[in-house]
């Protein structure tokens, strides 16, 4: 199967703040919420990014400045060309009566779910107010900051249990830093509520052959990135360790 990166144009940029930009791509892709694209900058590198939604022009990805690659990506101008392949990964199983809980740029992965279930409560946390994304897209999201610079001071997991109880949710969708995933999965497990979390691991091929995203006995790029909470609780590496680019274990 031919699966090389194909070149697409950035047709629009939505600048959320200094470090976060949504790139609207001239690419109509059939995808399911939770899936990701490998984005290639020729001559530089290729990295996985969640599909953050779509409109009539095509799909979009939201990029947070973290290293050299994402730093370059957020600076790209409208009209620039990038390479994409995908969509890859096991998506979210869709259940309507749900709650969405996101940490940081993890909200990008959950945004297509939130677009589908407009009544679902969104609990969204950032380290600081200036990192916030999608303020106009999801204006009713409950916002938390670690430093208290906006919204409620604390973490979105602080209120998860009460939201689940109030709303009687059937499913919690989660994406964010791994300690937050661990906390969310445990809360849902204790309450007997379904939970699906999207995980992040260093990826090379994105298609299940290189083994770089190994987590326990599964590959995050193929068996994930979305896992059921109970699968994660049984995974010995969940919340513990990840492989870096050399294949060395690092704490998460």
């Amino acid at each position, binding site marked *: 199967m031919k699966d*090389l990166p194909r070149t697409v144009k950035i047709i629009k940029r939505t600048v959320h703040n200094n470090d976060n930009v949504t790139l609207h791509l001239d690419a109509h892709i059939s995808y399911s919420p939770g899936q990701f694209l490998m984005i*290639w900058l020729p*001559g530089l*590198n290729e990295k996985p990014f969640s599909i953050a939604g779509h409109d009539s022009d095509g799909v979009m990805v939201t990029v947070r400045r973290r290293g050299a690659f994402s730093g370059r990506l957020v600076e790209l101008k409208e009209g620039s060309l990038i390479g994409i392949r995908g969509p890859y990964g096991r998506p979210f199983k869709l259940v309507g009566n749900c709650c969405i809980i996101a940490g940081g740029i993890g909200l990008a992965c959950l945004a297509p779910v939130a677009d589908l279930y407009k009544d679902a409560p969104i609990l969204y946390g950032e380290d600081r107010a200036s990192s916030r994304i999608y303020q106009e897209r999801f204006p009713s999201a409950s916002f938390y900051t670690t430093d208290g610079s906006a919204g409620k001071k604390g973490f979105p997991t602080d209120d998860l249990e009460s939201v689940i109880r109030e709303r009687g949710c059937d499913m919690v969708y989660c994406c964010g830093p791994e300690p937050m995933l661990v906390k969310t999965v445990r809360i849902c497990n204790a309450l007997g509520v379904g939970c699906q979390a999207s995980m992040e691991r260093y990826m090379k091929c994105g298609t299940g052959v290189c083994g770089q995203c190994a987590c326990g*006995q599964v590959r995050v790029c193929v068996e994930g990135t979305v896992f059921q909470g109970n699968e994660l609780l049984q995974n010995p590496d969940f919340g513990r360790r990840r492989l870096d680019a050399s294949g060395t*274990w690092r704490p998460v």
Partner: protein
Amino acid sequence: MPVNPDLSVDLFNCKLKNPTILASGILGTTRDLLKTVSLNGAGAVTIKSISKEPRYGHPNPTVLSFGPGLINAVGYSNPGIEKASEEFCELDQVGCPVIGSLIGTTAEEFIYVASIMDKMGFAALEVPLSCPHTPGYGKMGNQDNPEEVSRIVTAICSASTKPLFVKLPPLASAGNLIEMALAAKESGAYGITASNTIGPGMLIDIDSAKPYLGFGIGGISGPALKPLAIATVFELYKAVDMPIIGTGGVSTGRDAVEMIMAGATAVGVGTAVLSRGMSAFRDIADEIKEILSLRGANNLSEVRGLAHR
């Protein structure tokens, strides 16, 4: 007609339940993933190659599917032997024999890594001397000639008593293939893995006018490699009396039987993990069994080398 042909293979003092062996570089990053491969029916598994020091490899893209196969330039990323010896412990948990793959640039490095691997639970070792895309190693390290093969195999065998497979390039890219295999044998190697990917290969994105691979050039595996690998095994079988792990484009039972008829003792499976998923090993084994059954063959030795008769 035999209903239930025996697929087992006697290799490096082990009995493999079937001839499929996970090829090095595919999924062999952790013991837990090897366990998954074993649960999916592999007869044996090979870890991703380990060097003395950690290596981060080439930038992405490192592995791409281009249609008739994969092109890759991973660049031997690995955690180094110290971390690898922690990871690949208690290998009996894997559920099938595990082959330890090692790489190096100097005799000292090979000896260092081999002496540690010798104490680990590997059933055998493998040394690739044919990588087409990593400076210092294989083709780009001038290791693909009989003199270097001899020197490196001698070094490894001085540090480890485990059966050693030498992974050689396809015949199409190595005029001295037979000389390399003979040098390996004379220096103490147990078997040959043939073949490695063929390369260097390159694919260019015409929009950016840049090679797709981060490193530019890479090695080609999968169906595109298969005829080259079959011919390699065929020639090796004629010239050298050693077990051969026939590797290159084996994705069906038919491919595997072809490889075995060319003379392979067992078959490496790599790229098929992409085309057929994790169950490739069990599926290929089932298909081999069906083919043997239809041929009225009781076991693999009845078809091994058949193309030479």
